[in-house]
């Protein structure tokens, strides 16, 4: 059952601003073998189609021919097309869009809360939150003082360019602002999906194994910055900073690193400097 409105659709993606009823509601449904999705304002209507759409493809006369068509088409071309549209919009409005990826629990939201509270005084910050379920992160971001849209992907393991495209239409993105897109916590699937971001930032925390870059190379290969969070816990864990940097650098020699603690504030200035340099 749809957790938003209680209607019968199992699989849905929602885009919500904390404190408001959901504005857009995307439903996917299948009929006659075709899956399609559509968005509508929050009202209910029946998705059943009373008339069958089937028609036969058999013909009694003539005969069939087979011919080969060379497509040479990138399977993700549709996503990439929308990602480029997003990117064009961001460039045109001078928005620095960052795709933040990590495993669950690395401290992405805490880092954003602190960034909004501190850097947000100088630069307008806006957030798109991606999670399978709940408004928890969006509520935290809103409390921190930034406009936010929560995308709940339902069963989805990643955000794609279309979801970001829809979500950003619900935000009044200001010129020369920073848009943080907090992806679904997952180090595998989001790496394949370009959202149109200016930079991809991978975040790991010192409570995770220092072999993360070796285990999940795709994510480290496609990122430009690696944030190592929770450095305040370094004395208590077996996490070798140099080892993780060396492992990540083998996958991606151009990867930049910032070690910080979103809790104590250590290293945050370096992160703000990185953002301000790209933003200017």
């Amino acid at each position, binding site marked *: 059952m749809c957790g938003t409105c209680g209607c019968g659709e199992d699989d849905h993606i929602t885009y919500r601003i904390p404190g408001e009823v959901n504005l857009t509601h995307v439903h996917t449904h299948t009929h006659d073998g075709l899956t399609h999705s559509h968005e509508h304002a929050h009202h209910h209507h029946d998705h059943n189609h009373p008339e069958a759409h089937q028609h036969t493809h058999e013909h009694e006369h003539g005969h069939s021919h087979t011919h080969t068509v060379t497509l*040479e088409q990138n399977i993700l071309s549709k996503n990439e097309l929308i990602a480029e549209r997003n990117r064009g919009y961001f460039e045109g409005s001078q928005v620095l869009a960052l795709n933040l990826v990590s495993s669950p629990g690395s401290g992405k939201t805490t880092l954003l809360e602190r960034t909004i509270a501190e850097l947000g005084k100088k630069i307008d910050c806006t957030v798109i939150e991606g999670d399978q379920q709940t408004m928890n992160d969006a509520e935290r971001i809103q409390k921190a003082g930034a406009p936010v849209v929560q995308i709940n992907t339902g069963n989805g393991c990643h955000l794609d360019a279309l979801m970001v495209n829809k979500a950003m239409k619900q935000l009044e993105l200001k010129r020369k602002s920073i848009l943080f897109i907090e992806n679904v916590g997952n180090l595998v699937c989001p790496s394949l999906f370009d959202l149109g971001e200016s930079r991809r930032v991978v975040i790991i925390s010192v409570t995770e194994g220092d072999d993360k870059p070796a285990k999940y190379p795709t994510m480290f290969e496609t990122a430009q910055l690696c944030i190592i969070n929770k450095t305040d816990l370094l004395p208590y864990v077996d996490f070798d900073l140099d080892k993780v940097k060396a492992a990540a650098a083998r996958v991606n020699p151009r990867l930049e690193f910032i070690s910080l603690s979103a809790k104590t504030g250590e290293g945050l200035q370096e992160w703000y400097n990185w953002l301000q340099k790209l933003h200017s």
Partner: protein
Amino acid sequence: MAIFVTKILVMHELSIAVNIVELVEEAARSQQAENVSKVVLEIGTLSGIEFDALTFAMTEAVKGSLLQKAEIVYDIIQAVGVCEECCHEFPTDDYFTVCPVCNSMHTSFIKGKELKIKSIDLVTND
């Protein structure tokens, strides 16, 4: 239409599979094909796709589509790295690509990232 928003997106291979079906159906319809008898895919060994997951996802994604009876051919493309310092090319199976000749870490890939629909066989009736 937005097919990225699929029924069950529990793994990214399924959304890849749904994308494949959608792109092939579009191409088939544009040529008034009745159905698709063969699809040749090119999948690089470093494309980020778990091959078994994709083949499983494809069996689900083709149901009820023009590809339902199509033979799906998976051309696996072995990754080839190239050293940016000495231009040496070498086959590789992972992202840890130190150049075997000059030991430089500055290497990139010239093959192995493919995620492509190479060709399709369309069946048309007179």
